[in-house]
């Protein structure tokens, strides 16, 4: 092979080959093939209920795919064996939809737990790391607070600090801006960008928030609920400007439709 092709291959950190995810006999998404470039912010887009989060779970190791492969640095995540998968998993940082902070631990303990459980660091070193991660997301003041006392946006930031605890290569974000007001979600977007640049991590983000998608993502895949597979590949902005697919067009043009009256939309559909 010529060297440019090899170079492209090398830059791909995560690759999905013919991935199909299903719950029993109910297929959620099928035959997905896409690659995530090292250092990119990759969007998994699609309407509500199209299975974006489910696909994400197959990527970070929580849901066994029905068929197909997930390659992390050319290593198959799902045939590598449980122990090896756990090892690969150490390279992942996941921010769940609601933050998923362990409710019985304080914010600081939440960030410390992965370090305590999975590394040999001593307590002072862990405390230092926890303070750093919390500082990165602007949450140092909340170190001793229980998650129940935090607002939605703060919970996400604390969850992000925890996701950063083990210095991951790949960050997975499940709907980071869901349930946040536009300003908070904008701040979170900025934070994601800064962290990507600062840490050199690769980010895979599930979202249907257009401003976020257009603002920060430089590549992506569009999943369709009806055909249950990918119907578009590329950066969200690129898809918006070039895709001819009606579903993608409707999805991406939502911004301009917002000005229409409900009756207008009804008529437009009919």
């Amino acid at each position: 092979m010529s060297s440019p092709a090899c170079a492209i291959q090398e830059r791909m950190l995560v690759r999905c080959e013919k991935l199909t995810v299903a719950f029993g006999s109910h297929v959620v998404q099928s035959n997905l093939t896409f690659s995530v470039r090292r250092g990119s912010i990759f969007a998994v887009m699609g309407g509500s209920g199209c299975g974006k989060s489910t696909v994400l779970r197959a990527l970070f190791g929580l849901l066994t795919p029905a068929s197909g492969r997930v390659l992390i640095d050319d290593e198959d995540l799902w045939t590598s064996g449980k122990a090896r998968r756990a090892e690969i998993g150490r390279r992942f940082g996941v921010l769940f939809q609601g933050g998923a902070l362990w409710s019985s631990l304080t914010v600081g303990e939440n960030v410390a737990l992965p370090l305590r459980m999975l590394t040999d660091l001593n307590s002072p070193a862990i405390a230092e790391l926890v303070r750093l991660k919390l500082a990165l997301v602007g949450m140092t003041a909340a170190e001793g607070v229980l998650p129940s006392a935090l607002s939605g946006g703060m919970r996400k930031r604390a969850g992000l600090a925890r996701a950063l605890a083990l210095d991951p290569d790949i960050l997975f974000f499940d709907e980071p801006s869901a349930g946040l007001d536009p300003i908070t979600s904008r701040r979170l977007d900025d934070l994601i960008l800064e962290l990507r640049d600062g840490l050199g991590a690769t980010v895979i983000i599930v979202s249907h928030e257009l401003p976020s998608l257009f603002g920060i993502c430089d590549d992506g895949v569009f999943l369709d609920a009806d055909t249950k597979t990918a119907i578009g590949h590329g950066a969200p902005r690129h898809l918006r400007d070039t895709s001819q697919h009606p579903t993608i067009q409707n999805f991406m043009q939502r911004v301009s439709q917002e000005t229409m009256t409900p009756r207008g939309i009804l008529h437009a559909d009919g």
Partner: protein
Amino acid sequence: MPAPAAPTLKVDRKGNEGLVTIAGDWLVGQEHMRAVVGLHLVLAEVEHCARLRFNSSNLAHWDSDLVILVRAIQAWAESAEHRPSIELTALPAALQQLLALAQADHGQHTSDVTTTASALRWIGAQAFRGWGHLVESMDLIGATALNIIPALLGRVHARFADLITLMQDSGIGALGIIAVVNSLVGAILAFVGAIQLQRFGAGIYIANLVGVAVTREMAPIMTAIVMTGRTGGAYAAQISTMQGSEEIDALRVLGIPPLQYLVLPRIAALVAMMPVLYFYGCLMGLAGGMVVSVAMLGLSPTIFLGQLRGAVDPPEFYIGVTKSICFGAFIAISSCQIGLRAGRSAAEVGRAATSAVVAGIIGVIVLDAIFAACTNVLGI
């Protein structure tokens, strides 16, 4: 507000065309909702028409009621022999819009649609589910057993601080209720026994009755049942809530097994606390029995205690302790397992707590029966 005008529905036939005239107030909750039921009789008139038109010029107020009526007419037309076409243009614009909205829903669902199942199917499904749960439980018991030695060597992903908190919650927190339950059970035993034994002049043997019954059976069982309701239910609810908020997923992603981080400390806490609570329960039960014996039979406490010493041998305590350890392990494992397999909704949390308590109580009693059979065979 003026009284609503009576709603009327009139159907006329003009050649090949039917005219449905709707007038008056069509509001939900009035008598004529029944009109929909007898609708096909009214519409029989226009059965052979090719087209149906509406006249709503005298229509006053209307709400969902009218929408239902028109949808019923549409449904009738679709199933009629000649499938008359329906022209909605004469109806109010808002009504047409609502009809269009309702029409757009084809009743398609992406997720599984719950079907009404026959009894046989239900029994089959339950049997498969029960088998699945049994296999899961065995799996959990096996995995727990495999983790005992690493846990003793401190090589598991768990926090010691959690264990202490759990022991506090399940141990010290339960002292009050265990005292109440066990002393009352001891007292009840003494009441019942005193009446019977008095008849034979064998009142002194009340100490034997209360002593053996409390140490061997009642204290372990009552303590276990209290712990099932108090701690087992709490474990199931905690773990299923964590399931719902993706906290367990967060553990799994990091490669921290929930079994080690959540289940083992809970099993350890209950197994450690149950024998302590058992002894405490015994003490309370015997005290309750003694108070009643003293009050009813006029025995002096010294005589009661002397008789008790002769009646209760150490093996009774060994059996009681063994039982309470087994009960503790069972309650912890079953409730954690129920919590782990719960779904992700709030309703599931309630269901998990309920089934943990039910499974715990039934399991404890079944285990106790097994113990009774075994000790009987062994002659202990």
